[in-house]
C-alpha cells in the first residue's frame, strides 16, 4: 500500500478527491498527464475559436474530434504493455501493407498520395507514427542494450523502410518525424556517443543528398527560410505574416479574438499549422510561454513514466512517445517563428484537424497504460 493511500485513510479529509484518484487509477488513467493534456486542449480550443473566425460549427467539430481522441486514449490505456508488445510486429506489418497500398490505390490530393479510403478515410502514415517506435522497442526488448552494430543495422532497416515509403508519397514532414521517433528509440537505447557524433557529421552530406531528392516546392521552402523577403507575396508570405503576427502581439498580446493579422486573413493556415502565431498575436509572450510550460510538463511527465517503466519495451516506447511529442512542439514553434523551414507539422493538440490528434492521444494512452500496469508486472 502506498503512503499516499494510507494518509488518505488516516485523515479521511481528501476523501472525495481520493475517490476520484482511485477511480482514475482503476481506469488506468494517469491523473497528472490527463490534467496537463486537458489544459493544453482547453487553451488550444480557446485560441482555435478565434482562429476559425468564431465559427461555432468548426469549433464544435474540433471539440468532437477531441472527444473521439480521448476515447481512443482511454481505450489504449486499457491495453497492457505486454499485450501491445505481442501485437507490435503484426501492427507494424499491417502498417507497412497499408503504406504500400496507399502508393498504389491512394487518393491523390494536392500532388501527393497520402490518403487511403477503406470505408473510412485515413492516412496510414499516422499508424506508423506509433508502429515504428513500437517495432524498434519490440526489437530491442529481448536484447541487451546498448545495441550492437548488427542490431543497429536491423533497427535502421525497421525505421528506414517505412520512412522511405512515406517520403515518396511525398510527405516529407511526417517521414522526418517518424525517422525521429525511431531514432529517439535508438538514442534512448544507448546508441554510442561516437556513433551519434558520426551521424551528426554525416548529416551534412546527407542533407545535400536529401536536397537532390526534394521536390521543387520543398526546396523553395528551405530557400524561403533563408531569405523570406526574396518572394514576399509568394513562398515567403507565410513566414513574414507569421512573424508580424507574433511580434505585434508583444508581451500581453492584442487580446483574445482581437488579433488583426489572424482575423483579417493576413495570416495563412491560421487554424492549422500557423495557429501558434495566432496565439502569439492574441495572448502575447505570456500566453505562448504558458502553453510551452504545459507542453514541458506533459513531456516531463511522460519521461518520468518512461523512467518508472519496468521493462525495455515500455521504457523505450514511453521515452520515444514523449520526446517525439516534444519534437512536434519544437518543429512547429520553430517553423512558425521562422527558425526552420516550413514543414507541414501542426501544433500538437492545438491545430485544427483530427487525425494527428487521435494518434497523439493514442500515444498518451499507451503512456498511461505503461504507468498504470507497472505494478502488475514482475520486477
Amino acid at each position, binding site marked *: 500500500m502506498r503512503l499516499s493511500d494510507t494518509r488518505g485513510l488516516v485523515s479521511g479529509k481528501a476523501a472525495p478527491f481520493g475517490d476520484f484518484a482511485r477511480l482514475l487509477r482503476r481506469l488506468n488513467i494517469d491523473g497528472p498527464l490527463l490534467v496537463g493534456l486537458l489544459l493544453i486542449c482547453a487553451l488550444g480550443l480557446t485560441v482555435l475559436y478565434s482562429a476559425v473566425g468564431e465559427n461555432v460549427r468548426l469549433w464544435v467539430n474540433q471539440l468532437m474530434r477531441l472527444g473521439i481522441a480521448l476515447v481512443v486514449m482511454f481505450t489504449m490505456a486499457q491495453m497492457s504493455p505486454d499485450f501491445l508488445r505481442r501485437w507490435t510486429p503484426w501492427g507494424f506489418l499491417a502498417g507497412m501493407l497499408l503504406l504500400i497500398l496507399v502508393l498504389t490505390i491512394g487518393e491523390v490530393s494536392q500532388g501527393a498520395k497520402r490518403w487511403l479510403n477503406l470505408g473510412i478515410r485515413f492516412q496510414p502514415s499516422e499508424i506508423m507514427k506509433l508502429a515504428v517506435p513500437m517495432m524498434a522497442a519490440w526489437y530491442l526488448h529481448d536484447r*541487451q*542494450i*546498448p545495441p*550492437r552494430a548488427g542490431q543497429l543495422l536491423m533497427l535502421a532497416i525497421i525505421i528506414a523502410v517505412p520512412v522511405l515509403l512515406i517520403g515518396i508519397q511525398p510527405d516529407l514532414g511526417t517521414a522526418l518525424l517518424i525517422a525521429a521517433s525511431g531514432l*529517439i528509440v535508438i*538514442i*534512448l*537505447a*544507448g546508441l554510442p556517443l561516437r556513433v551519434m557524433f558520426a551521424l551528426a557529421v554525416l548529416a551534412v552530406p546527407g542533407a545535400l543528398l536529401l536536397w537532390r531528392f526534394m521536390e521543387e516546392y520543398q526546396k523553395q521552402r528551405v530557400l524561403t527560410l533563408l531569405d523570406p523577403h526574396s518572394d514576399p507575396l509568394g513562398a515567403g508570405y507565410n513566414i513574414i*505574416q507569421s*512573424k*508580424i*503576427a*507574433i*511580434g*505585434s*502581439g*508583444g*508581451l500581453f498580446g*492584442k487580446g483574445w479574438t*482581437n488579433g*488583426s*493579422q489572424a*482575423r*483579417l*486573413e*493576413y495570416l495563412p493556415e491560421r487554424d492549422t499549422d500557423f495557429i501558434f502565431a495566432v496565439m*502569439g*498575436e492574441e495572448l*502575447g*509572450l505570456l500566453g*505562448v*510561454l504558458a502553453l*510551452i510550460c504545459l507542453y*514541458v510538463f506533459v*513531456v516531463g511527465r511522460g*519521461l518520468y513514466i*518512461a*523512467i518508472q517503466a519496468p521493462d*525495455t519495451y515500455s*521504457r*523505450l516506447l514511453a*521515452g520515444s512517445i514523449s*520526446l517525439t511529442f*516534444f519534437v512536434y512542439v*519544437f518543429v512547429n*514553434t*520553430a517553423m512558425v*517563428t*521562422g*527558425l526552420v523551414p516550413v514543414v507541414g507539422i501542426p501544433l500538437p493538440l492545438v491545430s485544427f484537424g483530427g487525425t494527428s490528434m487521435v494518434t497523439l492521444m493514442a500515444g498518451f494512452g499507451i503512456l498511461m497504460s505503461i504507468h498504470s500496469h507497472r505494478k502488475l508486472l514482475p520486477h
Partner: protein
Amino acid sequence: MDLLSPIKDHHSERRLFIGRVMLTSTAGFLLLGIVIARLVQLQIFDYEVFAAQSLGNNYRIEAVPPIRGLIFDRNGRVLAENLPAYQLELIPEQVEDLDDTLQRLASLGLIEAEDIPRFKDLSESGPRFKPVTLNLRLSDAEIANFAIERPRFPGVDFQPRLIRHYPHGEAVAHAVGYVGALSKNDMLRLDTSQYAGTAHTGKTGVESRYESHLHGDVGYRNVVTNALGRQLPAVTNALFESLPADETPMPGDNVYLTLDLDLQQLGTQALQGRRGAIVAIDPWSGEILALVSAPTFDPNLFAVGMTSSQFSALQNNLDQPLFNRAIRGEYPPGSTIKPMLALAALETGATNLTRKTVCRGYFMLPNTTHRYRDWKPEGHGEVDLHTAISQSCDVYFYELSVDIGIDRMHDYLDRFGLGRLSGVDIRGENEGLVPSREWKKHWFSDPADQRWYNGETVIASIGQGYMLATPLQLANAVAAVATRGHRFQPHLVAATENTLTGQRTLASLQRLDDVDVEIDSHWDTVIDAMHEVMHGLRGTARAAGLNAAYEMAGKSGTAQVFSVAQEEEYEEEEVAERLRDHALFIAFAPVDNPRIAVAVIVENGSSGSRFAAPIARQIMDQYLGFGSNAPQ
C-alpha cells in the same frame, strides 16, 4: 562482454536509460531555449517594428472625392451642376452564372451584346468582391425595368453616383467647357493625390481653367480591410484602438460667370445651322457677356462618357463642332479694322476730316498696273473719311495705307489688342496676326520672301492678306473704340464662392494699356462714322439699325476666303458655299453710354452687313432690354 552475459542486466540498463533521458532532456531544453529566445526577440525587442507592420497591414486610407463646384451665369442660373445618376454594377462573387446573367441583361437592353466578352473579362480578372460597372447611366425607364427584374439578378444592382450635368449644354458648351474621364496626361498634370477617388476632370473652357477652384480638396476615410483588400464592416474597427482621424472632403468653389445665358441661347439660335462665332463684352469691365461658337455640341456626352463612334462622329464632323471659333478661329478681319485704321490715319496725320478722294471702284499704286478693287465695282464717287467708313469705301483706305505705312498700321492695331493673346481666362485662344516688316522678316526664311511690298500694305488696309483676328480680339477692339481707348482684361469668371462659408471672391477688374490719342475728337470722328453705318441713309448696316430703341455704332466686314483673279467678277451664286466670303460685324451700343460691344462672324455668310449685323443687333437688343423676351 555482451556475448558473455545473455541475461539482461536490468539495473545497468535502467541507469543507461536514465542517462539518455537526461541527455535528450538537456538537448530538448536547449532547443526550447532557442525558440523562447526567438519569441522574446520578436515579441519584446522587435515588438514596435512588427506592431507598426501589423497596423499598416490592416487599414487603408480611402479617398473621399470632393463635390465639384457649380457654375452659374451672371444672373445665377445654373450652367453646370452635379446630378445623381444610377449606374449598373455587377459583383462577381455574388453572381451564380456569369454568362447567363450577362446574356439576360443584354436581352433586357441594359448592356450591349457586343460588350459581353469585355464584361466577362473584367468580372474574372479583378478581385471577386469588387463591383464591375456595366452601364454608366441608366435611364429612368431602365431603372424601372430593372427594379422589377432585380430578384432574378443576384449580384447585379444599380448604384447612385454624381455626374456632371450641363442643363443648357449646347448653348454654353464652348465657354463652360466640359469634364471628361481622367486620362494619363491629366494625371501627369494634376496633383494625383487630390484626384484619388475622382474619375473626371475639366477638359476645356472654364471647367478646365478653373479646375483648381471647382475641384475642391479630397477627403480621407480609414477603411479596415482584410488581406484581399475587402472592406470590412465598421464593427471590425473595434479591433484597432487608434486609427488616424478621417478628414472630410472640402467641396469645390462655385463659379459665377460673366456670361448671360439669354445671350448665349439667343446667339446659339441665331447661328443655328451655320458656322460662326459671337463674342459680346461689357466694354467698361471686360466681362464677356456672350461667347458662342457654332456649330456646338452637347457637353453632357463627355461627362457621361460616349461610345467611340459618337466621339469620332464629333471629331470627324466637317463643321468641327468641338472647335471653339470664338477664341481659336482666325479670320481675315476685313473692313472691321477700318475704324481702328481711321484713328491711326487721323493720329498720324495721314488724313483729316476734309481730305477727299474720288473712288472709281479701283486703286493703283504709282507706276503699276495692278488694280486693287473696291467691293463696289462702280465706285463710291467722292468720299471723305466719314463716308469711307459708313459706306466702307476700300479705295479711300487703300490710299491712306500708303501714307500711314504698314509699321504704323501694325502699331495702332496692336494697341487695340489685335495680333496678340487677349489673356482671356480659358485656354486655347489663338493670337491672330497683324503683319509688319519685322514680322515678315522673321516669318519667312527665304530672303526673297522677307521683303515687304507696298501692295501688301494696300490689302492689309482692308483686313486681308496676312492679317488674321479671332472673334474675341475683334470684340475687344470694338470695346476699346466704345470706351474711347480704355481697355479691360476680357474675362469669363466674375466671382468664386466658397461653398461652405458662402464667401465670394470677386475677380478683380484689370485695366490694360489704353489706346492713347493726341486729339480726343478723333474718337468722335470714328464713332460718328460707325454710328452712320447703322443709322445713316447710306450706312452699310442701316437695315440692322432700323427701328432701334437706342443708338448704336457698328462696322461691317466681308472677308475673302479665296481670291478672285484680276479680270474676273465675283459671282456669289457660282461659288461653293464653303468658299463664300465670311461675314463679319462689330458693334457697340448705346453710342453715348456703351454697355455692350459685339463681334459676330458667320463663316461663308457672304456679306457682313446682311448676315452678321442682324445677329449683333439681336444680341444688343436682348442685353439692353429690348429683346423679344424683354419687357417692353
